[in-house]
């Protein structure tokens, strides 16, 4: 019974959180957004004391059911493990705790947090790992499925589905997600919850608490005949049948052992007295952690069109004998390149680069939710995988505050549309040499036309000639850095106006 309750609630939590990371429309967040906010690390980073208190109490009373029900990465491993032990009667065996590794990782994790090595923190954090895996590896399939439906609904003249663009947002993040997934699948497939009990810092911290939890798995030493059946079925490898002991710091209270015991010697019951722990030093499973080479960055993104333009150049010579303006056809769309920004852009609500760095667990929930293709994981080593903004594909639209609504960690605080329109996350910079007023000798003003705060005015290039072409002048005091000007600037590959980030956001 207990096991069934655990299974059912795990499935519900897991599906719901997975949906959060798949849904690009942002509609599910309204209902289920809280599921991300009750995750341990995000709550800790958001200094959400209520939730932390609740989780501590929960663990103190019931043990690590957080790991069995709430943590999506834990449930994900259970699913993999279930596949892995198919057909095997006695899939697992007891192994002593690898304390040096557990505490070692935890120490590294805490040090990384203190020192601001966000990449290390992000790679080790379980909830973020899961978010990255779903966002990078599973969401594309979800989107392609949606696009198929969009294609079909277009045929029947329905507007129920619309097409979305699937694109690789960051190569390093993708690789990290992939490596994490492979590592987890291998570990879980073979040995169940190895990751949770050797690497996961949240597991280790909760393990400290669950050691003293009220309800625990206990073995009735009178009934127990040390057959070891429970231990051979324990995915956490925490039951020592010889000693009749359960390592409660590693037990994730999955309740699997209760029904397996032929002698009904195992129970999940309150324990008043605490037991002393035991130490063992012995075999360890081979481990490699999730770090990969982070150096590969925008190498792939450039160089594509360059080659093409040169081949096209060769054709230019052959002139038409008749000069005419032919009707129809579409001008080719030239690739856009990201301008070299001195300071990266972080979304309104993130307050400052420091706040972002301090709170973000790089779970990619905001990247999932961004409907304007603005947010993507950073490739910068210091805030690897944390979100940053760029405007080649879209801009931070005035009606959207999605990322601030979904962030569970307080890295992007909730803002209203009004707040956002008064938050200066950066300021626009004009690059004279690229402006089509110069290069194409035409009137433009598309930046000024689309500026939501009217921070751009068009003034005559020649102060003495009112009829001369007009160039944009930016009132940086009014500019909020939304990137409408940059995104809609016609100049390619670099835009003639782009946004420089602000280290700390300002309210104007």
């Amino acid at each position: 019974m207990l096991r069934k309750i655990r299974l059912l609630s795990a499935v519900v939590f897991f599906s719901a959180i997975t949906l959060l990371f798949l849904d690009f429309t942002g509609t599910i967040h309204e209902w289920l957004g809280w599921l991300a906010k009750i995750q341990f690390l995000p709550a800790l980073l958001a200094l959400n004391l209520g939730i932390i208190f609740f989780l501590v109490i929960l663990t103190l009373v019931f043990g690590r059911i957080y790991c069995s029900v709430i943590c999506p990465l834990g449930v994900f491993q259970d699913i993999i493990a279930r596949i892995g032990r198919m057909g095997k009667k006695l899939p697992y065996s007891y192994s002593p705790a690898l304390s040096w590794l557990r505490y070692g990782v935890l120490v590294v994790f805490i040090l990384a947090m203190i020192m601001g090595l966000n990449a290390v923190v992000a790679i080790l954090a379980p909830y973020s790992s899961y978010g990255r895996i779903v966002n990078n590896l599973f969401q594309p399939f979800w989107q392609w499925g949606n696009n198929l439906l969009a294609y079909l609904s277009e045929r029947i003249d329905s507007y129920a589905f619309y097409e979305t663009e699937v694109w690789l947002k960051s190569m390093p993040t993708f690789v990290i997600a992939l490596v994490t997934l492979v590592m987890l699948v291998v570990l879980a497939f073979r040995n169940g919850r190895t990751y949770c009990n050797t690497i996961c810092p949240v597991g280790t911290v909760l393990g400290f608490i669950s050691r003293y939890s009220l309800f625990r798995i206990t073995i009735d030493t009178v009934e127990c005949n040390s057959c070891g059946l429970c231990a051979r079925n324990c995915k956490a490898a925490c039951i020592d049948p010889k000693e009749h002991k359960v390592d409660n710091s590693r037990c994730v209270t999955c309740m699997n052992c209760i029904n397996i015991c032929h002698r009904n010697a195992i129970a999940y019951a309150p324990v008043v007295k605490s037991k002393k722990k035991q130490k063992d030093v012995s075999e360890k499973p081979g481990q490699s952690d999730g770090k990969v080479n982070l150096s590969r960055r925008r190498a792939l993104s450039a160089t594509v069109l360059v080659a093409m333009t040169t081949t096209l150049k060769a054709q230019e010579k052959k002139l038409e004998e008749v000069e005419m303006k032919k009707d129809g056809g579409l001008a080719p769309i030239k690739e856009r390149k990201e301008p070299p920004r001195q300071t990266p852009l972080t979304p309104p609500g993130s307050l400052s680069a420091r706040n972002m760095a301090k709170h973000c667990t790089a779970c990619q929930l905001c990247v999932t939710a961004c409907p304007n293709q603005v947010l993507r994981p950073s490739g910068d080593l210091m805030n690897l995988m944390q979100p940053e903004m760029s405007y080649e594909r879209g801009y931070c639209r005035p009606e959207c505050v999605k990322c601030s609504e979904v962030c569970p960690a307080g890295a992007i605080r909730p803002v209203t549309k009004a707040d956002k329109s008064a938050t200066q996350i950066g300021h626009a910079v004009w690059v004279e040499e690229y402006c089509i007023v110069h290069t194409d000798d035409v009137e433009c003003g598309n930046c000024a036309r689309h500026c939501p705060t009217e921070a751009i005015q068009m003034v005559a290039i020649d102060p003495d000639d009112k009829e001369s072409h007009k160039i944009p002048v930016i009132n940086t005091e009014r500019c909020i850095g939304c990137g409408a000007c940059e995104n809609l600037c016609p100049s390619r590959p670099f835009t003639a106006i782009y946004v420089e980030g602000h280290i700390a956001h300002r309210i104007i």
Partner: protein
Amino acid sequence: MKEQDKNINRREFLNIVGITAASTTATLYGCTPKNEKTPAGRASLAVPTDQMTYRVLPGNEDKVSLLGYGCMRWPTIPSPDGNGDLIDQDAVNELVDYAIAHGVNYFDTSPVYVQGWSEKATGIALKRHPREKLFIATKLSNFANASRENSIAMYRKSFQDLQTDYFDYYLLHSIGGGGIEVFNRRYIDNGMLDFLIAEREAGRIRRLGWSFHGDVEVFDQVLAMHDTVKWDFVQIQLNYVDWKHASGRNVNAEYLYGELEKRGIPAVIMEPLLGGRLSNLPDHVVARLKQRRPEDSVASWSFRFAGSPENVLTVLSGMTYMEHLQDNIRTYSPLVPLTDDDKDFLEETAQLIITYPTIPCNDCKYCMPCPYAIDIPAVLLHYNKCVNEGNVAQRQSDENYKEARRAFLVGYDRSVPKLRQANHCVGCSQCNEHCPQGIDIPKEMQRIDKFVEQLKQETLPV
């Protein structure tokens, strides 16, 4: 960049042409028995081969089919290099063969149509039929460079591309835009009109005329030259809306046609359907037309209107699809002229149509390619579609606001790729001089963009 790209396309286009030039799809059609019996209720689907109405007008012994083929909208296929489209020569051959088999004998093209490929593609398709049974019309489209050398080069290239040594009909292309000065620059100052008159005397041009859009003063002045030049025909925009309710700078067709009839100059009709705008109508207008003649298509009303006046030589239609070709052949095989009642009915219909604030774009693509990559006609057509379908919300309190908003925005992304949408209009206005309908394109782009923003931000008035 633009020019380079076109060259690439052209090269690849020639490859495609090379493959398909030899293929013969002729004689596939035209084998429908004369009075084929069709199952009850499906009579309207038969396409007669020998019932086409022909016009022989006084002073013009040509026996011209009332349906003329406009070669401005040939079907295209996506280019293999992913940039733009190429003419689908197989489809062109098929359409031309079918048209000829069903009695169409007038083909109207221009050097600038379909990214400059129309003459070549039309020439290839027509070469497979006896030249003497066809009437080929093309134009001096010297918009970009009106020098005598360039104009003559353009004239000569048309012979080459159309694979012929004479033109039955030759037009000064789209006069009226830019006033009489532009007309003088293009045809008088460079001596091209005299050159063409000499060519007519030499027999390389059988009939000389012009097509008209725009300034009525130019129309009057050039028409007045009839006494000296003798215009053999004039091509005008005529349909039941433009008859009395011409939009923008267009002139009412009633006046244009009347002036031609007065002088006995045959009229060739263009835009009888306004680029499809007169078949793509609001539901209740469609219902009204269908109610009166349930078996006839909505478009057939436009063609009957354009074909009914007796001084009309031929009615041009740019038929991209076989179904449109078949429908139009049906309408003119034979023509059932409009009664006076019908005419009143269509005038009332026109008055209903003009209450809809559509933008008068006929999808001729003269404005294209936009140097900033916008798909101008696609944006305007999407807007018009939404106008007709009632999906252009005025206020947030509109009954169907939510559905209309979604239909407009989702449909917009479907009809026009994001990077070709109206928000990329820089307002350079290079397109405006090319629009025969006189649409202020940047103004419309910015208006539509503003509307899109209002929908996205939900800032329409409540």
